[in-house]
């Protein structure tokens, strides 16, 4: 279980910083006692746990700017956090640093149907944006599985994905403008309200910065019209490879589905136990394909899709006849991560990407690795994108189990790289995968990224320790925490 950092008197610099914070934030929105800090110690990557020096809860853009400027003046590292759903440890606090909790900065400032945009604060919850846009028959397309709770700020910082990236792209394809406070307290406006821009795409490079470029305080998001109709088909297979080949066949038709998802047997069992979606019993894989758009077009595509699926060796094919049935098909998929809790006390999620044509090969290799390591792996993935989500199951109470799970996770990432893919499709590098970034990129490639990081955050104060392994050329963090956190004794693992 959690081992708290040994209590020690606060350094004078920290005490000074805290009293400066007290001048800006009322007591109710400045937390510093161990009990108050506990809920902020970890995020969706529960294996990591760090207690910050303090937490502030700003309710205005100005308060965020003030907090960052104070951090800069006092050389205190800071981490902005939304709902803490990061699966890569992206919002794990820094010991001795400030955690800026963005949840109360959650207003949807404007929905403009003529320009098809929403202007929102970073703490706005993903699905709240779509709810606000719904009266205009518009919605916000990126749909990470955690969308009922995750915030736009976190989505943008980590360039979140979701099941519908295949057609709509990732978060960065839906962010038009960003107002951000840079790590030294300068406020910048990037992009704007137009779909187009001139000059280098600064909004694009800011998106997915993993919190290293300061704290964004406002976004202009692009909204898209709600499709007139959806057609969702579910196919059950004896062999997961057949489901993989079905995806290739669908892609080859030239039909562009909104989403194509696969779940394997273990993931199906978990989903069934948790939310009872009623998926076909004893299937070894289920493929979900969804078409969306104008009725006539979707019906015509759906006829072609049906032929392809029927010819793909599916054991059973179901078609959602009502919106409720469609939601049930999706419920099993979207709750897969939390459902795995029903069959395992702990799990790690990876989100490596492989070229789509090598999906079956990757699945076969993962199965082999699972067997040779003696660790169960459940698979749910965005098949249309080649974005895998192997869930590596372990029991944290068993000594060494997490370490063994991490070794397997690393082998899966290397497999993705060997097949020509990426170590992360949508969860980001964060704390979790930073050791693998140098396996994907060469020294020069990373050198340029680090130089860019240093140009924007010379003191290394903004979410330090994420994305990059500390090294000679890395920015020097403001205080402690320069060292791998565990070695410094600052974190402990479940």
């Amino acid at each position, binding site marked *: 279980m959690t081992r708290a950092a040994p209590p020690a008197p606060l350094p004078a610099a920290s005490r000074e910083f805290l009293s400066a914070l007290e001048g800006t934030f009322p007591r109710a929105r400045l937390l510093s006692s161990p009990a108050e800090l506990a809920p902020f110690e970890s995020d969706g990557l529960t294996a990591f746990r760090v207690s910050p020096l303090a937490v502030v809860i700003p309710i205005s853009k100005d308060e965020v700017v003030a907090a960052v400027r104070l951090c800069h003046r006092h050389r205190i590292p800071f981490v902005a956090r939304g709902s803490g759903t990061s699966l890569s440890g992206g919002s794990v606090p820094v010991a001795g640093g400030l955690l800026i909790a963005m949840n109360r900065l959650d207003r949807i400032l404007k929905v*403009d*149907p003529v*320009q*098809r945009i929403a202007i929102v604060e970073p703490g706005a919850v993903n699905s709240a944006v779509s709810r606000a846009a719904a009266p205009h*028959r*518009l919605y916000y397309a990126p749909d990470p599985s955690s969308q009922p709770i995750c915030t736009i700020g976190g989505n943008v910082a980590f*360039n979140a*994905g979701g099941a519908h*990236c295949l057609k709509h*792209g990732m978060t*960065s*394809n839906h962010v038009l403008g960003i107002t951000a406070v*840079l790590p030294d307290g*300068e406020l910048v*406006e990037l*992009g704007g309200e*137009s*779909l*187009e*821009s*001139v*000059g*280098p*795409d*600064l909004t*694009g*490079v800011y*998106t*997915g910065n993993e919190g290293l470029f300061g704290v964004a305080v406002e976004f202009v998001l692009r909204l898209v*019209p709600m499709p*007139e109709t959806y057609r969702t088909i579910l196919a059950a297979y004896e062999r997961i490879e057949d489901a993989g080949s079905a995806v*290739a066949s669908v*892609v080859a038709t*030239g039909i562009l589905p909104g989403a194509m998802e696969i779940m394997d047997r273990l993931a199906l069992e978990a989903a069934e136990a948790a939310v009872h979606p009623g998926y076909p019993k004893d299937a070894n894989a289920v493929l979900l394909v969804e078409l969306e758009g*104008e009725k*006539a*077009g979707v019906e015509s595509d759906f006829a072609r899709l049906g032929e392809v699926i029927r010819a793909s060796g599916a054991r059973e094919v179901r078609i959602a006849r009502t919106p409720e049935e469609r939601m049930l098909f999706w419920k099993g998929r979207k709750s897969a991560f939390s459902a795995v809790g029903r069959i395992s006390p702990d799990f790690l999620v990876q989100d490596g*990407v492989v*070229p*789509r*044509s090598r999906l079956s090969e990757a699945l076969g290799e993962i199965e082999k690795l699972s067997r040779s390591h003696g660790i169960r792996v459940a698979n749910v993935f965005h098949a249309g*994108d*080649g974005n895998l989500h192997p869930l590596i199951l372990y029991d944290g109470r068993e000594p060494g189990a997490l370490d063994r799970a991490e070794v397997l996770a690393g082998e899966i990432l290397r497999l993705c790289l060997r097949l020509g*893919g*990426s170590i*992360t*499709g*949508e*969860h980001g*590098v964060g704390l979790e995968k930073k050791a693998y970034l140098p396996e*994907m990129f*060469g020294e*020069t*490639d990373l*050198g*340029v*990224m680090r*130089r860019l990081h240093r*140009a*924007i955050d010379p003191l290394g104060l903004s979410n330090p320790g994420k994305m990059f392994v500390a090294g000679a050329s890395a920015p020097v963090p403001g205080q402690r925490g320069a060292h791998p956190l565990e070695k410094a004794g600052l974190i402990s693992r479940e």
Partner: protein
Amino acid sequence: MSAAPNSPRTPQEVASAVRDTPHLIPAGAGTKPRLSQPPPGFAVLDLRGLTGIVAYEPGEYTFTALAGTPLSEIASALARNGQHLPFDPPFADSGATLGGAIASGLSGPGRYRYGGLRDFILGVRYVTGLGELALAGGRVVKNAAGFDLPKLFTGSLGRLGVIVEASFKVFPQQWAHATVVAQFPDMPAALEAMARLVTSPFDIEGLELEPPGTLSVRIGGSAETFAERLPRLEGFVGGRARRVTGGEEEELWRGLAPRMPETPSRVLAKVPVTPRAIAELDRDLGAAGAARRYSAGGSVAWVDWPAPAGELAGLLAARGLAGLVIRGDCQTPLIGRTRGDLFRSRVKAAMDPAGRFPDF
């Protein structure tokens, strides 16, 4: 003027040319002349020798090509497999290259539906101002590892580095297209129709507005669906509408792509706009004798300006708008009220610390 480097044929040759030249600007086919025009004392690095499709697996819907590869060559290779870059990169017919398309950041009418060049670029190999040959992004359709430098290079105007190779995702081509062209009495009426269209459930592939009030609304899909969809769309759009299909339709959209003004002295500029800003901007532009068209659902104005470009800069700045001069005389191609200048200058300092490429 520095000595002009030889025309490099490999990424490594580009890197050494960059290292050997104190001040340079990369250029492709020169179809967007202001963007590759060297400031005094800068050499031009000609990338037309750096050509070829490096990887293309149709089943993956991705390709990788060297920066000097003509877009038309890529388009033909893709079309043989029923695929395309749906954002219609401009000036492909005039010989525009892939690298130039990225560095200019321009997209055509097709960007309306699925996004612009920035939304399709996956990876980039580039040479920094220090002469380093580096890679960012990847070759798979989804990737969140490291900073998104491929997006940063989109619109970088040859000022952050030399793009030597890039990877893109591509989409299946539509089986067929059809267009409803609707005439409205004036801009407000056309803008009102456009506002209704953008929230409608029609799967619109292109939406172009030409003064005084012509809207072209494009749909795609299998041709047999058009019999049902076109009358419905036509009824919804209103105005004096006519349907255009087949070869005539393709011709219509070729004509709607951005093009150089015929008179050589006239300026061509891209101006990002929003539908709400169009009515007033259009009055100003019209009064100044500019020809103009509003592309991609009113998100870009293509402005054919009578010159000099400086006056356009003033007009845009007064309206809080920025612009990019693609052809014409002006001190820098970026004009009007640009945003994020501080952030951009820090990015520039990281990518080109010695100032080997021109400033923005």
